[in-house]
């Protein structure tokens, strides 16, 4: 990395990108640099840092709206919101525990990766809270889309397209969000000792109830510490509302598992906060050597998919570790690979990915390789291969936004067309 460019404002980003386009100099766009492990390594000599592009431009609690510059630390935004008892509804994950990365996550990075957390299941993803973007495309033009109001259907919705595009379509300068009130009280019903099938079905019943469950997670029994499995149901609301919901959910759970003898506990307060931070940030993989995969699937398919994966992995004598979030709709899967040597690691990772993807393809959904050594991420595609038509469209879009291919080249792979699968 020979040089770092640090623009002070939007106009300067536009100048930098225009110059980069003329000189054909690729740029690696970074905010806090805490999530550079996602996707592939960017092939660029120059770093474009947004750290100086920081600050909340507008916050109207009465309108549930916040607008901030792209390099604003997420912590600053969360702090400002907390003062008014509000929050980002999508509960963005912090990737530092997973990657062991340092630095301050920025709001631009959150949007670039469409980063959400446990509440995504009920409140939508980052892209659902995002209501406006300003960005500089690969031609050096300043583009705005959406705005600062939560109902807006004026023109094509590039806001959604930009969320999760990993900086390959444009450099964000400013982002607007719909925010939500923070509830007065939060608590979690913990059911101990359920097997996976009962747990996932229990979560499904709870999510089908009117009690607005905002976290639905299954932590399986882990061999190393011998703890019983935990099935978690988080509820939020006004004080007495939470008491009511907990009581009703408890009845529902007992009816579903056809037992009143299972141990059930209620967690609140500081333990509660750290419990959900741990789930949000998948701290079970913090400091471990697992290759970590994320499986986005239909919630109930979690049962059959995890069974199929366990069977495959046990024939290979590989240790796996899992966490089920979003009522089963998100499986975090860790595989401990003891292969030594770069080639072998790459090869075996490739075979894990193939195995997992072919299982998921039978049910529908997609698999992302979230954490693996760099050479593994180069050997296998971190993102799920796309259908040919989707790949063609993605490739076309990228050329329209960034004709010279200077924005985060390589992050999503060479080009979507290079990752075409045989079709889904």
């Amino acid at each position: 990395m020979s040089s770092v460019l640090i623009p002070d404002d939007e106009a300067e980003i536009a100048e930098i990108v225009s110059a980069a386009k003329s000189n054909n100099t690729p740029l690696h766009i970074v905010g806090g640099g805490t999530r550079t492990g996602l996707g592939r390594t960017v092939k660029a000599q120059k770093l474009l840092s947004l750290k100086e592009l920081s600050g909340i431009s507008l916050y109207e609690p009465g309108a549930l709206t916040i607008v901030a510059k792209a390099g604003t630390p997420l912590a600053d935004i969360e702090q400002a919101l907390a003062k008014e008892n509000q929050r980002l509804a999508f509960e963005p994950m912090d990737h530092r525990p997973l990657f062991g990365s340092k630095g301050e996550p920025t709001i631009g990075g959150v949007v670039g990766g469409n980063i959400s957390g446990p509440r995504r299941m009920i409140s939508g993803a980052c892209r659902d809270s995002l209501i406006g973007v300003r960005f500089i495309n690969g031609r050096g033009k300043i583009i705005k889309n959406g705005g600062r109001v939560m109902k807006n259907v004026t023109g094509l919705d590039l806001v959604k397209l930009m969320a999760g595009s990993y900086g390959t379509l444009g450099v964000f300068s400013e982002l607007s969000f719909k925010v939500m009130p923070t509830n007065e009280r939060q608590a979690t019903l913990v059911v101990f000792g359920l097997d996976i099938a009962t747990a996932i079905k229990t979560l499904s019943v709870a999510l089908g109830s009117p009690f607005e469950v905002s976290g639905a997670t299954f932590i399986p029994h882990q061999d190393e510490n011998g703890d019983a499995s935990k099935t978690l149901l988080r509820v939020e609301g006004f004080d007495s509302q939470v008491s009511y919901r907990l009581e009703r959910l408890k009845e529902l759970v007992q009816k579903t598992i056809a037992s009143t003898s299972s141990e059930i506990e209620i967690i609140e307060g500081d333990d509660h906060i750290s419990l959900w931070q741990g789930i949000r940030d998948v701290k079970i993989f913090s400091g471990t050597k697992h290759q970590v995969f994320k499986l986005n699937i239909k919630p109930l398919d979690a049962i059959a998919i995890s069974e199929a994966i366990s069977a495959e992995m046990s024939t290979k004598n590989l240790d796996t570790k899992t966490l089920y979030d979003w009522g089963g709709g998100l499986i975090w899967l860790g595989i401990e690979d003891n292969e030594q040597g770069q080639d072998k690691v790459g090869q075996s990772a490739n075979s894990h990915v193939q195995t997992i993807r072919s299982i998921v393809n039978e049910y529908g959904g997609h698999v992302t390789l979230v954490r693996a050594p760099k050479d593994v991420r180069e050997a296998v595609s971190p993102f799920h291969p796309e259908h040919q038509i989707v790949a063609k469209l993605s490739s076309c879009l990228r050329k329209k936004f960034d004709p010279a291919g200077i924005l985060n080249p390589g992050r999503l792979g060479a080009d979507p067309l290079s990752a075409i699968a045989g079709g889904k």
Partner: protein
Amino acid sequence: MPMISMPVPNVEIMSRRDEIITALLSALPAEIVISSESETLAYDCDALSAYRCSPLAVILPRTTAEVSAAMKICHELGVPIVPRGAGTSLAGGALPTADSIILGTARLNDTLEIDLENRFISVQSGVTNLSVTGSVEGDGFFYAPDPSSQLACAIAGNIAMNSGGAHCLKYGVTTNNLLGVTVVMANGEVVKLGGAHMDSSGYDLLGLICGSEGQLGIVTEATLRILPKPEGARPVLIGFNSPKTAGTCVADIIKAGILPVAIEYMDRLCIQETDKFSGAGYPDVEALLIVEVEGSEVEIDLQLARITSIAQKLDPAELRQSASAEESALIWKGRKSAFGAMGQINDYICLDGTVPVSQLAHVLERIGELSKQYGLDVANVFHAGDGNMHPLILYNANKEGDLDIAEKFGADILRLCVEVGGCLTGEHGVGIEKRDLMGEQFSANDMEMQMRVKDCFDPKWLLNPAKVYPLEVSKERRERLQNQMPNNGESSK
């Protein structure tokens, strides 16, 4: 004469009408191809009925395969397609041109899968919004987006316009409740985006399709998120003698951490007329709010108590908390008949701009001033929680020049919405109605970027080509396609 112009239809395409219809009939069953003039007449407008034009023909396919076959032929023959859901667009989104074919979703009306455990429903896109909820409500679920036209409007149109409704504050709009779609591309290729799982891998093309006003492809099937029905819901009616205080009340409720499922606003003219029409017994005030909360009886009482205590501090002229289903129905009765009531006394144009909630009072005041300036009355009824305004400009369709004045007045209101930080349309879409105002909200670069996206999906610009972007802005693209057809269908690079 109305102000909004449409491009001169391509006579070359029109001259090939018989050839085009023969080609369609060779690939499609005769019963889905409508070509007699007396029958296509029914498709010459949508709910923006001041604008009419008969299409070359109408196709009403029953399957994705039929849509694909039709699109392929039109693509090869270079014929523009105007997609149409139920035809309830207030923005002219489904207005045909004389050189186009209407592709309607009316017969794509099967429910494909209901999965309560995974909380989704898959439907063909022609089913009505209300029937989606109808399919699952017996099991305690509902589909959240609820545009006023929900009895008639199709999911296809909801996706095209990213429709909202009264309950967006809590549940979001269509894009937040759409999990997957099957899309037929302009060249007839079929692609599935998303599915029953959450979040996409790669670029969010599903998010791009939603709200694209039929510019990018034809959605034939949709997978929708369904939600458990709340245990109950009850409103409170609050009347104020100043719009500004009503605006403050809305902001105070939200700031207090309460998330009502709906906050509806009506102004004096609207209150008076709907009350006469419906007998809802509304008070005689400047501004009326209907705030609805959900939950169990206990939860509702708790939230309504907090809301009334906030309202009381602002010295309301009226405060009426519903204690029963009958009282709730009475409170909602007027609001739900507002559009009908206003239609009884006058012709009207219904606008759809959104403004930041903090600007509501200011915007209402300015609309009042503009009303005097133009000499036309305005009734305001809208979703206050999300700032989506629906000013109804009253005019007389039989009076020469009145529509013209009403449209100019409307354009001024929309400019005002943009000026205070809002947008031209919150849930109706741009269509032709707001097309020529796009330059108020977007720069040339902004529009160029959007049109380049369309270039990827529809390189020949055959899909709803005269909509959304001002004609002079899209001219080069629209004319290029017409000069180069028929070509090989390769996407432009």
